């Protein structure tokens, strides 16, 4: 019976047709961010650490002006320059975290999904254990115990994404390893390695990849949270850190809201773009909801 009882059926049809303007808008924003992150040192920016003290203006923070587009912070440092540099760590951590997560989690997930048996049981339990900490709690725990470098922070956040990613990979693999072509391949006695690489990976990879963006959004936010609590990369300029710097004392926030609001804006737009683009991709590939 081809009667759509509500029109939403038709609506999703449309959604699946094209990615839409919003998607490309987000992608271009992300592109811009990545560009900035990559080439910050080469860009004609003021030094993010220099103190542009200007006695004529009295004591910093100075409000936004032609000289300082985003104003300066309490230490007369250029908020614009700092925000741009902030993109660097935030995105690097976000990206490498999710990459690590996908590599490790993905592998484990596929393995346990394909071979089942004890691998599956063990990994599943490990996942559950990892998932029974609120991720931020776990992150705080780990970062507090280590030297907080770009690498380690990324690794910690990567670790956090292992369990959710792994679960997904497993689910997807399970689904595919029951398919005829896989069974057939097994029938004719193909090597497991061959099957996984040739048959399963390609099929699992597509849906997973559409989730990478969403995952990265989560990682970026997590990094921000850590930085905000003073637990992200030491000596690094990060959006979370900038926001905290401007909001730590309510007086500062009152007198100089720009210090934290510009970084907030950048962070917000970036996360929004990641989410939106990721969500579009997901509907595009028609992958079911994932909770990182």
């Amino acid at each position: 019976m081809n009667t759509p009882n509500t029109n939403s059926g038709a609506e999703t049809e449309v959604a699946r047709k094209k990615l839409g303007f919003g998607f490309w808008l987000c992608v271009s924003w992300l592109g811009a961010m990545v560009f900035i992150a990559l080439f910050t040192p080469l860009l004609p920016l003021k030094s993010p650490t220099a103190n542009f003290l200007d006695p004529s203006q009295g004591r910093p923070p100075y409000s936004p002006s032609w000289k300082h587009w985003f104003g300066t912070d309490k230490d007369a440092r250029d908020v614009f320059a700092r925000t741009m540099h902030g993109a660097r760590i935030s995105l690097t951590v976000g990206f490498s975290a999710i990459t690590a997560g996908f590599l490790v989690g993905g592998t484990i997930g596929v393995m346990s999904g394909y071979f089942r048996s004890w691998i599956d049981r063990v990994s599943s339990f490990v996942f559950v254990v990892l998932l029974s900490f609120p991720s931020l709690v776990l992150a705080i725990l780990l970062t507090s115990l280590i030297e907080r470098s770009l690498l380690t922070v990324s690794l910690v956040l990567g670790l956090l994404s292992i369990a959710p990613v792994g679960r997904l990979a497993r689910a997807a693999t399970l689904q595919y390893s029951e398919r005829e072509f896989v069974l057939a391949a097994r029938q004719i006695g193909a090597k497991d390695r061959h099957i996984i690489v040739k048959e399963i990976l390609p099929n699992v990879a597509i849906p997973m990849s559409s989730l990478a963006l969403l995952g990265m959004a989560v990682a970026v936010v997590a990094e921000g949270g850590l930085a905000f609590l003073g637990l992200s990369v030491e000596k690094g300029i990060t959006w979370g850190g900038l926001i905290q710097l401007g909001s730590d004392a309510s007086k500062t926030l009152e007198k100089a809201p720009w210090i934290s609001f510009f970084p907030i804006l950048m962070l917000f737009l970036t996360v929004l773009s990641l989410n939106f683009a990721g969500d579009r991709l997901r509907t595009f590939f028609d992958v079911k909801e994932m909770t990182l």
Partner: protein
Amino acid sequence: MRYYVQRVALAILLLLAVSMLTFGALNVLGDPLFNILGPVAGDVNNPDSVKMIELAKREFSLDRPLPVRYAIWLSDFVRGDFGVTFSSTGQPPVSGVISERLPRTVTLVAMAQFFAILVSIPWALITASRAGKISDRISTLNAFFLVAMPNFALAVILKFVFSIKLGWMPLTFVADDPLSSRLFQMILPALTIGLPVAAVYQRLLRTDIITTLQQDFILLARTKGLSRTRILLVHALRPSLFSFITVVGLNTGALIGGSIVSETVFRIPGIGSTLVESVLRNDFPVVLAIVMIVASAFVIINLLVDFAYTLIDPRVRR
């Protein structure tokens, strides 16, 4: 029945694993002695200091091998004795700290959850019934915005707008204020945690309601001549709540995570902010206790969620 027993058993197994992990990590990676003794801890050439070190080690049973200490800790923990804080006096006992601060966090998370649900259900109902219309698309966009706003940023914004600019809300939490005003002081922190979650809930519930609205029994309800509202509330909502409830349950963990940030921004001495402080002070017993409490809460809530099904879906009753 057997099903319940299994779930509970798994939960316990889980908590054991979690506790071992945390306990191990904390003890292998940090030297608590300093918190107890100050510089003396490092002054290993001075006999007096060494004497004190030995004493402290015994007092906090740091001289025993790790497994033994774990066993000791566990047996105390289950008896509700969370040990002593690593301070020169071991005062106040961890259970003291917890019992003082946990209620605040619980209240906060409860309020947040309450707000989230309060907002999301009507929101979902309305948008679902208008699926595809402009209003629906706009609200979907709003939901996106909320979800994309990290809670620490949201906290800053809320603080700026409502406390600083408008002055409607107090800036600080005062532990000694009467309950009523403390609850009032908790509204912004709770919103900080609740709003983004509300958006998540709404998106989920909306899709489920739309699916439900396509069911035959909704059509039947229409043939009875029931009003749209009644169909939504009486027929569509309840059957759509299953995944909603799961997610609400699972999210409690995220909420606790959020409360860490929120408590720090709004300076509420709950276990969230305490966790951060203790972690920085290497006050492991406190950290351990908090992590365990959080994890337990997490696991137990998930149990309850499973059991909650039987309440809303008569089909699951056995």
